């Protein structure tokens, strides 16, 4: 059976691929949207902490699964290579299901700040790093942030944050109320002269877009929403794409390779269908949105006559500059119950320390942490105190409801050696070379993390904690994680970037990237809304070129 030729294939139905598929399909292009997982439901694992996307000791709730997926991780200290599975920390997992991480995320809905697009101009060259400006500005992305906020759905109230970038249109939903710890931290931040505000969230604070309001369960981060109040691409733009009649969703399909002809044009993709059978889907345009790891892996695995080192990789930039977020913060103990079960926990943030910190490159927003569920909390004890036995049990019993954690994502400083390659010796279930992760963080990360952790400590002490300890991130090892970014950097020079400023490969003009891979720097914020905005942005660029008939074969 031959698959009918289509205008576009979109690979990966997550935060980036969903908006692209919707933009293309509603503008009249025929689209096949590929997803390696299936549809996820709350009932698959409901409130089971041990099989969620946050705590994966007994597996990932929404995939991928260890029977078909693995990667190689190179130890940055001794060069040892280890095979890691998706439920293990070093794998850097993102969910494999329709909507990907947007089904089970904490759903913070941050816009990056204008400074985040101009890191090199502001902070200058940093030795040992590839810190650079984006080829587009905040203003270029603003209309696409707005589309993401309205079409996918964001609650919040920006004017309370004096550092928030200008926007043309307000958010569609009011903010969530603070929970008990949120109120305490709000008042404490004000006493310190900081500027606390409610965290913008991709969750319905009121009924919106045909779905009900959130009822604030504790099991939210890492779980699907039982009432469908969390806004992801699976319950917004992907259904819209399908309803257009122009988009077919093909689930449980593993894409192996982008086919590139001898003229340097992509002709379509090779993939394995849900029965493991090899298939070909030809298309005029190929859009890759598989996350920073899988997007780079697919390009690197797509070798052809003109691109022996992978599609668009003749200058060896594909897979480079892998970055994530160095989470850093502090934990405080209080002498009264704070826990009010108004989930998922994080409600209040400050953006006072994203930029303009003495001696620090960038910074990050700080917020109260999502609730730690009971097993996760077993590792939340103070340094030096026992991790087992009677004293540990006493700590659990006494402090589960009396502990507050404040933390934030430090904007990592990218470097060229933190990267994804492919391992020709290790193949996955389908025989496709697996991704291989190597490199380490830039030392600037640790310094930034120490600075932010100090602020977190101050904040908790001001809120009344009788004991505080810091959990400083950014040390050693490789970053990435769910906030992985940067591996197909956009830029104006094809020798120092992978795509142009439209998200189009410099070297293959009918292949586009639309996910966190494009991001030159990762902001001091959770990246989901920015990835969605990039999806809308790249989708729009493709439609514009398509209408100019440039891409039609």
């Amino acid at each position, binding site marked *: 059976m031959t698959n009918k030729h289509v205008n576009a294939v979109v690979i990966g139905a997550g935060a980036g691929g969903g908006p692209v598929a919707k933009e293309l399909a509603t503008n009249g292009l025929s689209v096949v949207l590929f997803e390696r997982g299936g549809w996820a439901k709350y009932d698959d694992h*409901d*409130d*089971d*902490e*041990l099989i969620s996307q946050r705590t994966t*000791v*007994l*597996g990932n709730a929404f995939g991928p699964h260890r029977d078909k997926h693995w990667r190689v991780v190179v130890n940055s200290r001794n060069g040892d290579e280890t095979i890691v599975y998706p439920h293990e920390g070093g794998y850097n997992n993102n969910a494999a299901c329709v909507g990907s991480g947007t089904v089970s995320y904490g759903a913070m809905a941050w816009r990056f700040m204008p400074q985040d697009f101009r890191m090199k101009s502001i902070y200058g060259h940093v030795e040992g790093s590839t810190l650079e400006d984006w080829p587009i500005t905040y203003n270029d992305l603003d209309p696409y942030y707005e589309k993401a906020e309205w079409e996918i759905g964001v609650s919040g109230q920006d004017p309370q944050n004096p550092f928030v970038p200008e926007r043309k249109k307000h958010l569609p939903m009011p903010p969530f109320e603070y929970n008990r710890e949120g109120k305490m931290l709000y008042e404490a931040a004000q006493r310190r002269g900081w500027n606390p505000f409610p965290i913008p969230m991709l969750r319905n604070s009121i009924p919106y877009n045909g779905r009900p309001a959130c*009822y*604030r*369960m*504790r099991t939210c981060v890492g779980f699907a929403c*039982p*009432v469908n109040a969390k806004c992801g691409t699976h319950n917004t733009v992907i259904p819209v794409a399908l309803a257009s009649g122009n988009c077919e969703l093909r689930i449980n399909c593993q894409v192996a390779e982008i086919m590139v002809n001898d003229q340097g044009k992509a002709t379509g993709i090779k993939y394995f269908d849900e029965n493991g059978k090899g298939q070909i889907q030809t298309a005029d345009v190929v859009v890759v949105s598989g996350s920073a790891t899988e997007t780079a892996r697919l390009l690197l695995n797509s070798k052809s006559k003109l691109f022996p080192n992978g599609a668009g990789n003749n200058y060896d930039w594909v897979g480079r500059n892998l970055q994530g977020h160095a989470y850093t913060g502090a934990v405080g103990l209080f002498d009264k119950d704070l*826990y009010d*079960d108004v989930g998922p926990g994080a409600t209040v943030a400050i953006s006072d320390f994203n930029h303009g910190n003495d001696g620090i490159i960038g910074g990050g927003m700080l917020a109260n942490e999502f609730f730690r569920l*009971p*097993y996760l*909390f*077993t590792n939340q004890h103070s340094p030096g105190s026992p*991790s*087992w*036995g*009677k004293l*540990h*049990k006493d700590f*659990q*019993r006494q402090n*589960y*409801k009396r502990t507050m954690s404040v933390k934030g994502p430090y904007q990592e400083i990218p470097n060229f050696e933190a990267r994804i390659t492919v391992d020709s010796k290790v193949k996955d279930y389908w025989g496709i070379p697996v991704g291989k992760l190597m490199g380490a963080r830039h030392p600037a990360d640790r310094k930034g993390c120490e600075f932010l952790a100090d602020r977190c400590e101050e904040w908790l002490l001001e809120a009344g904690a009788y004991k505080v300890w810091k959990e400083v991130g950014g040390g050693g090892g490789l970053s990435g994680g769910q906030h992985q970014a940067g591996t197909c950097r956009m830029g104006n020079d094809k020798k120092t970037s992978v795509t142009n400023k439209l998200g189009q490969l410099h070297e293959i003009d009918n292949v586009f990237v639309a996910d966190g891979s494009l991001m030159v720097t990762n902001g001091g914020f959770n990246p989901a809304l920015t990835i969605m905005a990039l999806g809308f942005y790249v989708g729009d660029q493709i439609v514009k070129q398509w209408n100019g008939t440039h891409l039609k074969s």
Partner: protein
Amino acid sequence: MNLNRRQFIHSLGLACGSLLLFPACGGKTKPVWRFLTEAEAATVIAIAEQIIPADQDPGATDAGVINFIDKQLAGFYSNFQENYRNGIAALNKFCTEKHGQLFEKLEWDKQTEVLKLMEKNSIEGDYWKENPSSRFFRMLRDHSMQGFYGSPRHGGNKDYVSYKMIRIDYPHVIGQNRYAPRCETLNAYAK
């Protein structure tokens, strides 16, 4: 009083695993574990009880941590089977040679001492040459915590004992505790 309860549970563990898990343990029927042998299970029960001892609240034995561990060893944790088998054997070889008894037969405080040595890789001799004792201990620590604090569906946390201990409701109807100040069904269920 706490000590008495702990010693009581401890002695129960020595005698026949857990009374709660095996009501027939005094009779002819013996528990059939999925992976562990009965002797291995006795050692794991004793270690888990050290990690989460009974006091005014139930401990690992009451919570069925052994059931969790054995169930996972026959399932998602099947890749740890060898680590368990070798680790338990090494521990009991050490305890027999140095203290004349299997781990679970040692006095409570002696057991604690042995585990602390294991945690720090401080046991002399070549009992742990291939896999450090600290790694074996850490695995048992983590798995015990998972069995005690994780969802009961995986075989541990019997009757939601840990959730009750840290005072959080786990309603049987999703979201029920959004609408009521306390989850009464859970309390009713517990009675």
